[in-house]
């Protein structure tokens, strides 16, 4: 019995990481109906930014993250303001193809800058520290922190959305971009700020990714797929849904891995497909889309 309980617990913690991957994607789609095919590669980019800050300034990984947060905000803001804003409109092709192009550029640019070697963010002893949860189950401190951070990020974002003027502006723009302009909301700036915030969450996700596992320039697309699956399983428009979607994905993958390590990723895809067939709008879709 502890075998399966342990699987559930570890799957849930893995889900926290997937939720962090997915939150940025969910945010951007919610506010500007943009699906960024380079999202996974931006996670990897953030990981390399943290790594570069660590090596250039000789700081520990947490300080590197804090320094990287504004850097990633600026990257996201600029990307949206200068380029992605020009692609928004009725046609779905331009944002898709432009972000796909960016995906290729980022992957290869990172390879040029950092080589294709696997990297890791060194965090010291905490990487392998674990906590006893009782019932004979031990969990890593980092995975636990990952899940707690995901929950914290969602609380913070919801607070922004529901209590802050900027959050009201986001929701208004998401509802009706034209009328939002009449409120003095400059769509282009709002979208850029939203992308900047998404990049901050992405940097946090990269922090946990890089400490937990090896990363290299090519792993972006797989992260995009996990993020996407988490968003779809959870249902469009709900950040808590995205968290749940991540957890379900994490659990499915962990169950698959438990049966046969080669089946981990496939199990996740299968779970995603089953939910897609049975509940195409996800488990907790918002009323309108």
């Amino acid at each position: 019995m502890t075998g399966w309980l342990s699987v559930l617990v570890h799957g849930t913690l893995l889900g926290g990481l997937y939720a962090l991957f997915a939150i940025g994607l969910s945010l951007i789609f919610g506010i500007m109906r943009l699906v960024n095919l380079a999202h996974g590669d931006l996670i990897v980019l953030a990981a390399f930014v943290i790594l570069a800050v660590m090596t250039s300034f000789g700081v520990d990984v947490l300080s590197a993250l804090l320094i990287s947060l504004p850097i990633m905000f600026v990257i996201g803001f600029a990307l949206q303001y200068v380029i992605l804003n020009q692609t928004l409109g009725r046609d779905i092709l331009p944002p898709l193809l432009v972000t796909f192009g960016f995906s290729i550029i980022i992957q290869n640019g990172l390879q040029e800058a950092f080589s294709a070697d696997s990297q890791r963010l060194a965090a010291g002893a905490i990487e392998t520290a674990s906590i006893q949860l009782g019932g004979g189950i031990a969990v890593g401190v980092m995975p636990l922190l990952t899940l707690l951070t995901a929950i914290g990020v969602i609380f913070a974002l919801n607070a922004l959305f529901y209590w802050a003027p900027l959050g009201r502006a986001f929701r208004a723009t998401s509802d009706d971009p034209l009328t939002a302009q009449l409120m003095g909301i400059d769509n282009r700036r709002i979208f850029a700020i939203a992308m900047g915030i998404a990049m901050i969450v992405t940097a946090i996700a990269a922090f946990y990714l890089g400490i937990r596992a090896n990363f290299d320039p090519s792993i972006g697309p797989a992260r995009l797929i996990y993020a996407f699956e988490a968003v779809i399983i959870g249902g469009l428009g709900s950040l808590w849904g995205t968290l749940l979607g991540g957890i379900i994905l994490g659990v499915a993958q962990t169950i698959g891995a438990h049966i046969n390590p080669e089946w981990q990723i496939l199990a996740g895809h299968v779970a995603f497909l089953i939910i897609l067939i049975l509940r195409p709008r996800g488990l907790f879709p918002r009323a309108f889309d």
Partner: protein
Amino acid sequence: MSLLETRDLTAHYRDLQALFGVNTRLEQGDTLAIIGANGAGKSTFLRSITGLLRGAPWSIVFDGEPIGHLSAAEIMKRGIALVPEGRRLFPSLTVEENLLVGGYGRTGSGHWNISTIYSLFPKLRERRHQASTTLSGGEQQMVAIGRALMSNPRVLLCDEISLGLAPIIIRDIYQALPKIKETGTSVVIVEQDIQQAMKVADRLYCFQKGRISLAGSPAAFSRDEIHHAYFGTQK
């Protein structure tokens, strides 16, 4: 000098021309009524002023400054607010949040804030935390007007605020107009209800097929003249 003027204003939707050289003026403190049949160009006129349609800089002059080329957000910040046709409240926002977002770009210095809006429209205070979509048509119109007022605009543009509402509700809403004027806001109302428009207007413009067919004080025109200007029928 007029507060707001349009000078030879034209507007196009792709290849279709909707306004053909429209000249109007709004004096400080006045109420302007715009009447005309569907498709005459009234909404296009308002969209041009608010910046949703952009044109030549000097085609619209506000307080002596050219604004025809500015974006909607920029124009709103200067003190021109629109109550859009069909209300267009934000479905994800509550009544109070809709009002608050009206002040996002500009709060202005003036009489209007959340409490004074609730004083103007007491029904809204009861419903402040409800989703805006659960309100009746009349209440939604009040929210839309309140939302526009939150920026303490110098010019309030009202696009067909009586559309789809029962006469008694329309009367209630129009009763708010004098209080709005008291605070120094100049008002432009676009109306299909000619009688209502003429009751409140200091000055009247009639649109017909993208052009002004009548301009002046409402008292100066006979019913026939207005009918003719509205429909373009031959006598």
